[in-house]
């Protein structure tokens, strides 16, 4: 029990630190949102001096001392009130995030899970048959694709599959003639638009999980209990999955939990390249517009979900592996 209490205490502390950093960091960036908006106007042509003043008035930039801002910020967080977004003015931050979140959760979430499952299984297979054909081709090829710059891969796929072959749309989350709704035509269009983004995230990410699992597995395969299991005459499948993979999986669970937590942050590059309406795009918009309210809310979502995912991973590892719990009480 102590172990779990300690973990909860730690979770609360890290959340507080994250929330505070979240408040401080955007304010350390030079300039203010009105200036960031002026930057965009300035690129279209010279700007007049009165524009910036008018914008500052309109956005209603935060006033008062940092302390009072901090307290009202904490109060608002408790009430899930993140204010009005500057870059999506006059929409409220909560609305903006709620429209983006499902897109990211569904696409990036599914692809992350798929990638984990397929990568891990392939890793098991490669490790079991290490040195054989599959292992040598898959490991080499995937460590190669994992090192691809994401942007480059996405643009190459867009150029060949969408622009030249016209199999897929060039960008977007769904067809421009549709409204988001629970209708067959809309879902079909959304799925169709998500194929290229999904392929790109999958291709760049699978290498990591395959190689991670393969290496872990090779380590466990050298353990004595595997030798014993084999000597007992157990089936290869059973030895591979029940004995080796299960133990090799432990550190991977933590990694997986982390990456699930990060799903909430979206896939920034993917979403910018494909103009995909998810959290990653929001994040890049918020940063480039110095949209403090949106930035804070996004970082909060990301940090909290990573921390919670980590917490859950800790709990699961604790349940799976008694050594961890015992370690905690003795220390």
């Amino acid at each position, binding site marked *: 029990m102590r172990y779990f209490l300690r973990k909860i205490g730690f979770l609360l502390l890290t959340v507080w630190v994250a929330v505070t950093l979240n408040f401080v960091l955007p304010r350390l*960036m*030079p*300039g203010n949102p009105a*200036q*960031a*908006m*002026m*930057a*965009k*106007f*300035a*690129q*279209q*042509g*010279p*700007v*007049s*001096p*009165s*524009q*910036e*003043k*008018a*914008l500052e*008035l*309109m*956005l209603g930039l935060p006033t008062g001392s940092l302390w009072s801002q901090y307290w009202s910020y904490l109060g608002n967080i408790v009430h899930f009130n993140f204010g*009005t977004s500057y*870059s*999506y*003015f*006059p929409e409220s931050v909560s609305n903006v995030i709620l429209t983006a979140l499902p897109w990211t959760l569904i696409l990036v979430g599914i692809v992350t899970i798929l990638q984990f499952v397929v990568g891990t299984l392939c890793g098991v297979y490669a490790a079991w048959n290490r040195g054989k054909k599959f292992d040598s081709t898959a490991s080499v090829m995937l460590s190669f694709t994992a090192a691809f710059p994401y942007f480059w891969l996405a*643009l190459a796929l*867009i*150029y060949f599959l*969408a*622009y030249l072959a*016209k199999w897929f*749309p*060039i*960008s*977007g*989350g*769904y*067809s*421009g*003639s*549709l*409204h*988001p709704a629970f209708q067959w035509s809309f879902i079909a269009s959304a799925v169709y638009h998500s194929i290229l983004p999904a392929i790109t995230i999958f291709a760049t990410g699978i290498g990591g999980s395959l190689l991670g699992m393969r290496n872990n597995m090779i380590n466990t395969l050298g353990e004595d209990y595997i030798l014993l299991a084999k000597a007992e005459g157990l089936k290869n499948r059973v030895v591979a999955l029940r004995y080796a993979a299960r133990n090799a999986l432990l550190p991977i669970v933590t990694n997986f939990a982390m990456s699930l937590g990060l799903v909430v942050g979206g896939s920034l590059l993917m*979403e*910018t*390249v*494909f*103009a*995909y*309406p998810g959290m990653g*795009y*929001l994040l890049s*918009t918020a940063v480039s517009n110095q949209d403090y309210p949106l930035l804070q809310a996004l970082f909060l979502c990301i940090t909290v979900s990573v921390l919670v995912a980590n917490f859950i991973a800790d709990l699961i590892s604790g349940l799976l592996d008694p050594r961890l719990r015992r370690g905690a009480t003795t220390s």
Partner: protein
Amino acid sequence: MAKNTKLVVSMVVALGLAGTTLAGCGTVPMNNTAGNTHASGASNAAETGAASVSNSSLTIGVDNGSPTFTDNFNPYAPSTRTGTNYIYEPLFFVNNINGKVTPWLATAYKWENNKKLVVTIRNGVKWNDGKPFSAKDVAFTFQYLKKNPSLDSQGLWQVLQSVTASGNKVTFTMKTPDVPVFYQIASTLIIPQHVWATISNPAKAVMKNPVGTGPYVVGSFTPYQYTLTKNPKYWQANKVQVDTLNFPVLGNNQTATLKLASGQWDWATLFLPDIQKTYVSRDPSTNKYWFPAGGIISLALNLTKQPFNDPQFRKALAYAIDKQQIANQAEDGYVDVASQAGLILPGQSQWLDASLPNKGIYPLNIQKAKQILKSAGYKTNSQGQLLDKSGKPITFSVEVPTGWSDWIQAAQIIQSSLKKIGITVNVSTPQYAAYSENLASGQFDGALLSFGGTASPYTSFQTLLNSSFATPVGQSTTANQERFKDKAVDQALQSWEQSTSTAQQKKSASEIENTMYNELPVIDLFYGATWSEFSTKNFTGWPSAKNPYALPSPYGQPPLMILTHLKRNS
């Protein structure tokens, strides 16, 4: 590549802030090479929603969304849709290329004296909800800006005393004589009193079906595309031949380029490297472009510091910097070298003092630069470094916002140019916010700065040169950031401001141009382009260097003019 970043970002902006930022002059002639049509892969059109379906529609790649559109056509919202500009109209259309004024919602204007402007309002105009438009709406619009200073992005009420309507006349009274303010009044978008009178928080109001007088109304809206359809009640409906406008989400630069090249869009505003190959060659008979100038990019030096405060030093720099190389390399040859007179030529040539040599352009002449420095008392040391008056080698940094890759390249060319006369230049690329703050507070050596592009050169000169803006270093200023001070220029600006006579205005203009040319408050480098690509497949009559009736941009107010000029191909 990164050059594209700058340009795409620029399109994010929906220019609700009425036409203050546009300008121009024809520099790159439209390419008219005729060739055999070979249709480039026509479309994914259904998928992207690009409607090449009808030949009476135009698909315009300009509105970015982030990444999807929010349904808001409020002209005062900073993130309003670009289509808002096709719905609301100003009193006069001002062509920022040459300052030509075309009556729009108003039919005439008259200065009773230099503090009183009377504007006659057009009869028979209706709002798109059927209610009649009147002088009262005009007066209401300006009163509304007074009541809500956050909407007054042109600072009109710093000048205005009162605005009153009577019959079909609206009278503007100024606090002090200010004739050039006409251009700001002229381009203010007029809103209907019967809609806005009850809106108390205008910037936050969400307008899905805006009531305007303009040629289009909102048709359909989805997060990835909206359409505007022709307003049947439009007061010059007979001139509007495009029935539907489609605005798909722009997307990022690379994908936007592909969409334009594949013929999904009929009108776009993108920087394309080697446009002949990337765009025109896809369909040479219809794919056209015109990149007129929209501002002047200059090198601003901090005039409160040595040796920048020495006009001879600045003159030597003007001779030493290879401006043509900047135009060719940093801007792909799409722009021209700028005149030191501070005007955008040829658009503003009616203001140019004919006595200025070579239309005010400083030619590249390293020898002359060295000679000027020598006779001004600058020496070089044994390593060939130029020394300032205290004997230290001259080295300074030039600031350019990060990511503005064409400007960064320009600064690098300045660096290599000035090396030839023994000056070490460091190119520094802070975030825009830091760049803008350094300029505002005067804490910089050199920086690239854009100015100009206003209908009247007065407005540009006023913000660039008036010494009342030149605050001491450390105090923030939004104008005259190089901190130039000259009483004669201030006087010339004042007499221009107060004069309703063109001859008097021109006299002031040439005084200022001569100061620009001889004192070089900033060193003019090249003209910043307005990017515009368009297809003549279904519609012709686009603006061009030969017929520059408007800037060719799909944002701001030019679309009103352009869409009343386009003719359907028969």
